[in-house]
């Protein structure tokens, strides 16, 4: 069966819209009220100092039932390992070119470490059914909403933060932003969007049965954020 040629429908639809579209479009909307508002902090003017954002980030992330662990610039791999051990996670997957290497390798040495190094379709069954946890880096975090920003790509595929039941995300304090628009302006400018940009706030959840909140609907049941206090300024405080 041929894929239908829909150029006919296209010209009908666009023709109808053009015939009734206003002659002069409205002026570009003014976003200032949003950017200056409570959920736009730090998006206009200077960046809010990341070290002041660790505490609000933690509060917001916990409200989504993410676990937040604090670690130093050198001991974070141990924090990752402890989080895995506490849950009895043995089979762990990381990106083949994970930016967390090589530090992470040593800490996970005695576990069954699997690298995501072949196309998904070649080991789908294993990823879905024989992996306990994943560990990924993050592009940054949003303090206002306790949100992680992920830019999956060749180093860390998209499904790493989706399929395993436990997702451990390593977030550096130096990459914290105050608000959603501030973070996206810095981490995902329109000219540099990855094939899949993800904002993640807590583990997967649903309230579809009688409005009762249940975690682990389809994605990770648990999200652990290892917050790495990496900035010099932060280390002093």
């Amino acid at each position, binding site marked *: *069966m041929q894929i239908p040629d829909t150029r006919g429908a296209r010209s009908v639809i666009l023709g109808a819209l053009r015939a009734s579209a206003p002659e002069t479009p409205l002026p570009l909307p003014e976003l200032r009220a949003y950017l200056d508002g409570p959920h736009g902090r730090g998006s206009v003017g200077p960046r809010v100092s990341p070290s002041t954002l660790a505490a609000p980030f933690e509060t917001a992330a916990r409200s989504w039932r993410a676990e937040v662990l604090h670690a130093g610039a050198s001991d974070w791999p141990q924090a990752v390992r402890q989080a895995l051990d506490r849950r009895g996670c043995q089979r762990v997957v990381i990106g083949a070119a994970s930016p967390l290497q090589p530090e992470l390798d040593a800490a996970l040495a005695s576990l069954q470490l699997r690298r995501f190094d072949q196309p998904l379709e070649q080991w789908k069954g294993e990823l879905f059914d024989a992996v306990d946890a994943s560990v990924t880096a993050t592009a940054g975090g949003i303090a206002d909403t306790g949100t992680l920003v992920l830019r999956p790509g060749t180093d860390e595929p998209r499904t790493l933060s989706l399929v395993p039941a436990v997702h451990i995300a390593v977030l550096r304090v130096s990459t914290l932003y105050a608000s959603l628009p501030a973070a996206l302006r810095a981490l995902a400018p329109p000219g540099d969007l990855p094939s899949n940009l993800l904002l993640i706030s807590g583990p997967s959840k649903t309230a579809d049965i009688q409005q009762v909140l249940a975690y682990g609907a389809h994605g990770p049941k648990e999200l652990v954020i290892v917050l790495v206090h990496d900035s010099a300024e932060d280390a002093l405080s």
Partner: protein
Amino acid sequence: MTPASHTGAVTESTLNFVDPRRFKANTQAAVDDPHLRRSFRSAMDFLQAKRAAHFGDTAAFETLRGVGEAIRQYSLSRLPDLLERLEQRLTERGVQVHWASTPEQANDIFLALGRKHGAKGMIKGKSMVSEEIELNHRMAEHGIDCLESDMGEYIVQLAGERPSHIIMPAIHKTKQQIAELFAQKIPDTAYTDDVDALIAIGRRVLRNEFRDATVGVSGVNFMVAETGSLVLVENEGNGRMCTTVPEVHIAITGIEKVVERFEHVLPLFSLLTRSATGQAVTTYLNVINGPRRAGELDGPKEVHLILLDNGRSQAYRDADFRSTLQCIRCGACMNHCPVYSRIGGLAYGTTYPGPIGAIISPHLLGLEATKDLPTASSLCGACSEVCPVRIPIPELLMQLRRAAKHDAAPGRPPLAGQGSAKDWKEALAWKSWAWINERPRLYRWAVGIGHRLRWLTPPWQGGWTAHRLPMRLAPRGLRDRLPGRRHN
């Protein structure tokens, strides 16, 4: 189905093919069902409270929704340009764009894509537009099974029903009903009404389906013309599964969902999640900028977008009705509607229920089938008060009521089904009323007769006396009771 013989039947699969033409009968069945009334009342109270917790600061809400309204109105004012730009940018990113004027055309595209990839089934994320085209039904006719994977949609599909709310599709069901359904329909499943256990059962079944499906289907919350992005907002992760794991991802959405710039999505996202479920953000914001790129190890190899019109261009034609297309599908209008919260979503018999359903459905289905829906409102205005993009819903309801009863104004093209609620008896009554009102002497005389003959008033006055005392003229008219103003 007669409502009287089916008390409580509104939650059963008998409502599978509810027809908006039978709206009044459906409504009766719904208000007679105490389970449904309880489910909706508690769900609406819950959602109203969650939303209110975020928008306690009225001034801040007004500011934010002013921005949301401006973005949607700007986008619509440039709609044809933005759609062309979107198509161009998506194509550059490797997304294949298809256009459909009608549900049939959209289904033909799905079918052709399914066959091309030898798909026996499709795994679906939440998409109201796919409900609009009856995708599941149409694909089943051709041997392709579509499986819903949003928990609420999955439950509703297992039960052979339709969603009763656009955000919480299974809102009308109790956990006990769901427990029975799972025990009955899912092999090797014992009865449990523990919500965590029920979700775990759904998770187990659906993960296998995500893993094995060739084609994933999703809706879209926002499209960005400048960047060629498809934005999906969700909590469960099934949307990410459907758009990430299968080799082919087919997205379908209405032509109105496009905005110009990525920064325009952010205030709308903020308004959407807070208005819908009272969340500052959802678990996931999934921004898809094309299929798997060279060197990437997952993500779909093909991404398709189907842009559906299905009557939207009719709404676009009229400067007033155009504001219907500002909608971002948060469901706040239904959560606050005194009619919806009493009859639930199924009674409407349309994909979109509640106030937004009453103003969009006439464009999608024509006024002939939907002429009763705009009357399902007390015009209290709660819907427009909470609408995050300020759609003047009561005004549009009034206009649609008028359009159902009258011909189009000269020089304006009629809506589909315009004038289909015309009733010659009603028209004659109004005409006579107008005629006699223009003749004061005759009017006074006739009213005088009326007062004297009030004892002849029939005790039975159709629908009015079903719930009320009969209407009767007073013994003396207003004029007689105001002696000082007797002669005007």
